[in-house]
């Protein structure tokens, strides 16, 4: 899923400063699961904004709403009668939701309440870690299910580099060395000969380097 992090409160407050009536809008998908932009977080953030604005004697209306998905046009429709009444909408969806909401309602000012950080997993309750960069050309079958693009700090294909120490990456001791993990699995499966293959330079044109991407299925188009 997509992982995000709440923006610093002061940044949110200064972003909202020019606007009186605000809708804090959550999204029921990824950001709910990673506890940053669901109904619960919407309620907390809206409450915080009200407390702060009232303390600072700023007249304001702060309302709350959470919809199923901000990245899907059909769920944005339910906002059509009410969204125009706000000076700004603070979206707690990922960057996709923030943009798509703004595209649907071009007269509405949509502001981001979270920093979208990565595509990842819930390793345990309260800990999310990155797994995929969406490079557009998956290599996991060659690297024993561990992504060198994402999990190696240098995205190298013929690792590990000289900074790997005791299974840890040179960038910090809490980060596992992806290539150490890959080699452990090669060894376990008796597949070290795969390690000796020299992997050629990657074609990054399927990644973001090739420009904004799209996927189309004509059979699904109405």
């Amino acid at each position, binding site marked *: 899923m997509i992982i995000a992090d709440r923006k610093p409160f002061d940044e949110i407050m200064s972003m909202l400063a020019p606007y009186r009536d605000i809708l804090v809008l959550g999204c029921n998908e990824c950001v709910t699961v990673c506890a940053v932009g669901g109904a619960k977080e919407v309620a907390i953030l809206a409450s915080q904004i009200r407390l702060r604005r009232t303390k600072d004697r700023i007249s304001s209306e702060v309302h709350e709403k959470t919809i199923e998905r901000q990245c899907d046009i059909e769920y944005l429709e339910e906002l059509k009668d009410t969204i125009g009444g706000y000076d700004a909408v603070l979206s707690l969806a990922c960057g996709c939701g923030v943009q798509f909401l703004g595209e649907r309602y071009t007269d509405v000012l949509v502001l981001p309440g979270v920093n979208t950080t990565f595509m990842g997993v819930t390793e345990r309750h309260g800990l999310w870690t990155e797994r995929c960069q969406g490079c557009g050309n998956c290599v996991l079958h060659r690297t024993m299910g561990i992504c060198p693009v994402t999990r190696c700090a240098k995205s190298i294909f013929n*690792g590990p580099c*000289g900074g*790997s120490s005791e299974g840890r990456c040179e960038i910090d001791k809490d980060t596992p060395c992806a290539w150490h993990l890959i080699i452990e699995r090669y060894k376990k499966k008796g597949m070290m000969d795969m390690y000796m293959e020299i992997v050629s330079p990657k074609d990054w044109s399927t990644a973001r380097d090739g420009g904004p991407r799209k996927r189309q299925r004509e059979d699904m188009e109405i």
Partner: protein
Amino acid sequence: MTAQGNLKRVLQSGAFAVTAECGPPRGADPDMIRIKAKILKGYVDSVNVTDNQTAVVRMSSFASCVILKDMGIDPVMQMVCRDRNRIAIQSDVLGASALGIKNILCLSGDHQRFGDHKGAKNVFDIDSLQLIQCIRDMRDEGRFLSGEEVKGRPDIFIGCVENPFADPFEIRAMRLAKKAAAGAQFCQTQCIFNIEKFERWMEMVRGLGVHEKVSIIAGITPLKSVGMANYMKRNVPGMDVPDKLIDRLRGTPKEKAPEEGISICVETIDRLKGIKGVCGIHIMAIGWEEIIPEIVKSAGLYPRP
């Protein structure tokens, strides 16, 4: 084909090679390079110039190498994959060859996390192994990575690095074998303090026959003080400084520590000379380049061939 570089000549003659590292200045003054180079001239066969090591901005390796070249020194241009994509890399390889730089050392590069521009975007379009292969194909096949033809092939002696002290230890010789297969002709290793571990690594390297394909130049760093030894042990990734070495420096009066550091260095060189497959030494006297002539003389490696 133009005349070969000095490093290649020395290695091919079978003589024990001596190379040294020169860190370029954090400014535009070319004399900073010239002063260091003057100290080294005649004592080493070639001089490496680091490429923004530890991700700290310095004068480019390319420009510094040209300055060395003009002084009659055979430069080894270090090239990391962190800051340039394949377009810039290949362009620099052509440029370097055009200006008479004969040696390129291919590295991944320290992550920018360690440097002075932590907010920089890294590139890592290709990795060090792919860089080796890329230069080899430009030179031997006359092909760019795209497959397009190179008109006027670069004449480059291709180097790589390997860190025998990084993990997993058991693949470190295999990784050098991969680099040799990719086209590496010489290898300058990480600084060696744990010589027993280095010997074990060399044994594995010989087991794979890699020492016959790549000239292995063993890395040496003189320790100036116990503080420096501790710093390297704790803060430099993939550095193995054994406790007995630290104890030896600690047991030496502070003013005698540099002298002791040099002795350790010379003893290490003597031991390295006896290891089958070691073709030379690479002295990385970080911030202490002026000591290199003394080390070379004390190790009986002067005059140079």
